[in-house]
Structure formats: C-alpha cells, structure tokens
C-alpha cells in the first residue's frame, strides 16, 4: 500500500469526503479532498460509496478505508442535505444500548443493524471455517452461586 489512511471526515460545501493519509515514500502526512459528485438527498449511499472507492483517481488512497466507513460518511452528507443536524446524524450512526429501537423508522433501524452487523461479522463462524461446528452445544453451569443480574435490581417497578 502506497498510502496509509489515518483519518476520514466530511465537508458539507461542496459535499466532499476528506482523507488524512501518510505517503509511504515521503513519510509525509497529507490531506486529500474528494468531492462527491451527482449526489442528492435521494441518492443511495452504499452505491455512492462504492463509486468513490472504485474511482480511478481516488482508488489507491482509499484502499485502507472500509466500504462501510465510506458509506457512513455519505450518510452524514445526505443527512445534511435533508436538513439534519450533525449531532442527530452522528447519533443515528452510534449504538446507544438504552435506546428503544422499536420506535425507529426503517432507515434508522437499518443503520443500527448495520452497526451491530460489524460485531456479528467479526465473531461469525462460517461453514467454510475449519473449526465450524453446526450443532455447537455449550453448557453454562447453573447454580445458586450465579451472579444476580443488575438488570433485575429494579424489578418491582416493572412488575417482573
């Protein structure tokens, strides 16, 4: 890899994606601004991200940037075009364990699921993996010495 990606960001006007990277040869830290073209509040962010990643001029610089991350940056750009604040936009891309996801719209829920999928994919055992076991049974010891779950502490309020 010629360029080592360090950090990513966005610029709203004109809509652009910013990459801070290190040039391997010169050992210099540089910044690259990549304008996102033909992008509107109706655009498909995953397609736009793919287009950028495969762009002939930017490809080499974006090698170390995961597609998912580029997609999220496009989400932020599109949210801005739709009139959302940066805070709202970032919150929708973050997982808040106390948030009730039942109340989200399809698109918002999809964002949260995409976040969760990252952990899922990291921990995923696939059929092709040499140590894959279809019927994997693990017994977890049961007994009175088990820790009580802190989630049960406010029991009375919920009528559990």
């Amino acid at each position, binding site marked *: 890899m010629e360029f080592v990606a360090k950090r990513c960001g966005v610029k709203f006007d004109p809509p652009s994606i910013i990459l801070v990277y290190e040039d391997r040869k010169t050992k210099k830290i540089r910044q690259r601004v990549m304008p996102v073209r033909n992008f509107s509040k109706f655009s498909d962010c995953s397609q736009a991200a793919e287009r950028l990643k495969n762009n002939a001029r930017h490809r080499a610089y974006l090698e170390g940037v995961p597609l998912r991350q580029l997609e999220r940056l496009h989400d932020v750009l599109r949210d801005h075009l739709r009139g959302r604040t940066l805070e709202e936009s970032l919150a929708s891309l973050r997982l808040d*364990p*106390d*948030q*009730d*996801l*039942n*109340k*989200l719209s*399809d698109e918002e*829920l999809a964002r*949260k*699921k995409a976040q*969760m999928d990252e*952990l*899922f*994919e990291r*921990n*995923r*055992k696939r*059929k092709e993996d040499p140590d*894959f*076991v*279809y*019927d*994997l*049974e*693990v017994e*977890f010891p049961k007994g009175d010495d*088990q*820790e*009580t*779950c802190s*989630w*049960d502490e406010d*029991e009375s309020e*919920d*009528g*559990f």
Partner: protein
Amino acid sequence: MAGGTSDISELDQEKYDADERVKVICLGDSAVGKSKLMERFLMDGYRPEQLSTYALTLYKYTTTVNGKAVLVDFWDTAGQERFQSMHPSYYYKAHACIMVFDVQRKITYKNLANWYKELREYRPEIPCIVVANKIDADMKVTQRNFNFAKKQGLPLYYVSAADGTNVVKLFKDAIKLAMSYKQNSSDFMDEVMRELENFELEQKEESSDKEENVSKDEKTNLP
C-alpha cells in the same frame, strides 16, 4: 412501518391442526437477532417466504421426531414487532414460542415482560423458551442469572447467532416441545372435540341401534 399491512387472519392456518404440522413463533424486540438465529439454524442458501403484506417471514423446515416426518413453520416478525404488539393471528394455533432478547441491551430484556404477557393472553399453555442472544459480545453474561425466566418457570438458553453456540439445540428443543404440546395438549376443548370425533367414528362402525344411547352417555361423561 408505514401502514399497508394486510390482515393476517386471511392466512389459512387450519393446516396446523394436522398431526404432522407444527407452528413455532418468534417474539422479541427489533434487532435482537431473531432472523439471524433462524438463518444460523437453517444455514445459508435458505430462502424464507416473505409475506411482506403481513409483515411476516415464514421459514419452513422438515425434520423427523420419533421417526415421524414433521413439517415445521417458524414464524418471524419482519418488523411487526415495532407496533409493540403482534396481530392475534400471529399467536393463533402456535404450538411453541421462542422469545429472544439481546444481552447487550437491557431494554430488550425488560420488554420480555410485555411480550410474555401478550403471548399468554392468546396462548396460555404453550411451551416458551427464553433466549439470551449475542453472548459472543460478552461471554460473562453466561455467569449471570436472568431472573425473568426463573420467575416465570421458563427455560433460558444462552446463544450466539454469530458463532452458533446452542442455536441448533434451541430450535431442536423448541420443535420437540411443540410436538409434545400438540400430542399432550391440556387444552380441554381440543380434547373434548377429539373424543367426540372418535365417538362418531365408532358409532358408524358399531351399527347397533339399541346400544347407541347408552354408549353416547358413557362417552360424554368422560372426565
């Protein structure tokens, strides 16, 4: 979800009365991993039936229980859970329930109480398994006691749809429980109906006029 959900009571569910068919339903909040669990059990390449007009996904599965072929329909919510409540037809004729929460999100655990309450309104007797999913994210949770299951006298399974821990066991046990519920259903009306059906068949075979009334009395006096 923006409206447009047809009435799932239009679906033909009489088929679940056949001996070799069972219906197992999944319950739980959005994004607890219900579909991921189904997919891990059935493995990739499986294409479920999307009944999007009913906000419902059906997974069909064939297996053998005690040497008998059994057709299992797994019902998954496909977003219907976002109304915080399911259509009564979702519960109708179900033989077992798999109730899932996400060990990383307390609210999904707390909401079990609501799901369970609704389940029991429609299906007071069917077996129900509580599932603690995503244990791969934090194995320490398997040391914890989740009181809800214990309090309701329900079995609790620690599973991970990602690495597969206890997923197959969960579904196999759910099918077994569904079958045994079906065979030993304590639903009184079901039993009465079955007795009456048997009686009518016997009657036709006997064809003895004078004994008819006597035997009828005997039958209806069954406990």
